[in-house]
C-alpha cells in the first residue's frame, strides 16, 4: 500500500519488518526485491533472491533473476556465480530457456573481457558458451527464422 502511494522508503521499512516475522512469504521477498531493483540497490535485491533460493531451490525463475542481478552487479566473481545460476536455470527448465541461454553467452563474454591478461587458471569451459549458442541457433532456426541473422551477429559480437 505504501508503495502504491509512492512512499517507497516506508514500503521498504514495512516489508523488512514484515519479513522478519513472516520469512516464508515469498511474494513479499519478491516485492521487496522489485523495489530494490527499481532503486538500483542491486546488492539488497540479491540478498532477497538468496533468501528465496534458500526456501525454494527448485524455482527456475529465482535462479534466473538472481543470475540477472549478479550480472548487473558485475565483477568477476559475480559473473562467474551468475553463469552457474544461468546453468542451473537451464537444468531446471529442460534446456530451452532463451534468457538463460543468452545469459550464459553474455557472462562468458564479460568474464573473458575481465580476465584478459590474467592467468589462464580461469580458463573456463568455452564449451558451455558454444553449446548455449548452438541451442539458441537451433531454436531460432525452427521458430523465429527471420531473426536468426540478428541472433548470429549478436552471438558473434559476444565471442570476442
Amino acid at each position: 500500500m505504501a508503495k502504491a502511494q509512492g512512499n517507497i522508503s516506508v514500503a521498504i521499512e514495512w516489508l523488512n519488518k514484515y519479513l522478519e516475522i513472516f520469512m516464508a512469504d515469498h511474494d513479499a521477498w519478491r516485492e521487496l526485491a522489485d523495489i530494490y531493483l527499481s532503486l538500483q540497490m542491486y546488492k539488497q535485491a540479491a540478498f532477497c533472491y538468496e533468501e528465496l533460493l534458500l526456501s525454494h531451490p527448485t524455482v527456475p525463475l529465482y535462479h534466473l533473476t538472481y543470475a540477472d542481478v549478479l550480472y548487473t552487479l558485475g565483477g568477476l566473481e559475480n559473473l562467474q556465480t551468475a553463469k552457474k545460476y544461468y546453468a542451473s536455470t537451464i537444468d531446471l527448465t529442460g534446456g530451452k530457456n532463451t534468457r538463460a541461454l543468452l545469459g550464459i553467452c553474455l557472462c562468458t563474454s564479460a568474464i573473458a573481457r575481465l580476465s584478459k591478461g590474467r592467468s589462464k587458471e580461469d580458463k573456463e569451459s568455452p564449451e558451455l558458451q558454444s553449446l548455449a549458442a548452438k541451442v539458441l541457433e537451433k531454436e531460432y532456426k525452427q521458430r523465429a527464422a527471420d531473426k536468426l541473422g540478428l541472433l548470429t551477429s549478436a552471438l558473434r559480437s559476444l565471442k570476442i
Partner: protein
Amino acid sequence: MVAELKYEISQNAYIKLVLHALKHKTTAVNGILLGRVNPQNDSVVEIADSVPLFHSNLALLPSVEIALIMIEEHYGSKGLGIVGYFHANERFDDAELGIVAKNIGDHICRYFPQAAIFLLDNKKLEALPMGKDQSPVMQLYIRDASKNWKLAGPDGGSRLVIKEPAANAVLSDYISSEKWQDVVDFDDHLDDIKKDWLNPELFK
C-alpha cells in the same frame, strides 16, 4: 550550449509505445526510439520507429544488452540508429524521471549525443479521448551541458512534435478498440521467440 532540437516522431513509433504502456498498466515499461538526424536540417531528429522493450525487471542488464545489440543490428542496416529512450512509470501520479531511465538515457547518449528521453504523461493520456489535443502524451527530457536530464519547457528550447497531426485521433481509436493487446515487446520475445518485437503486422 545545448542546441535546440526538434524531435519529430512518426505516428507509428508514437502509437506503438503508448499502446505498449497501456497493455501493461500495472508495471513500468520502456522502449527504444530509432531514427536519424534529418540530413537536410541537423536541428531536427526524425524518429522513424520504436521498439517496446520490457514490462518487467527493467533495471536488469542482461536483457537490455541483448535487446540493444539486436535492435542496433537490425536498424543499422536500414540507416537508422538509437536516438532515444521511452519510459512509463508504474504509478499514475509518478511524473518523475527515475534512476533507471536516466542511466539508460546516459548510455544511449554515449553513442548519440542528442538522444532524448520521453516520459509518458499519464494525465495527458487520460485526457486524450476528451480533447482535440494534438500534442504528444509524452514529456521530453534533454541532457543539459552538465549532463543532467532536464524537462524541455514550453518556453522554447527543444521540443517534441508528432509528424502526422492526426496521430492522437488514431491513437484514441486504437485505445477504444483495445489494440494494445497486439503489441509484442522484447520481454514477450524472450519468453517465446516466435513473438516478433518488430510488430510487423500491428498497423496493417
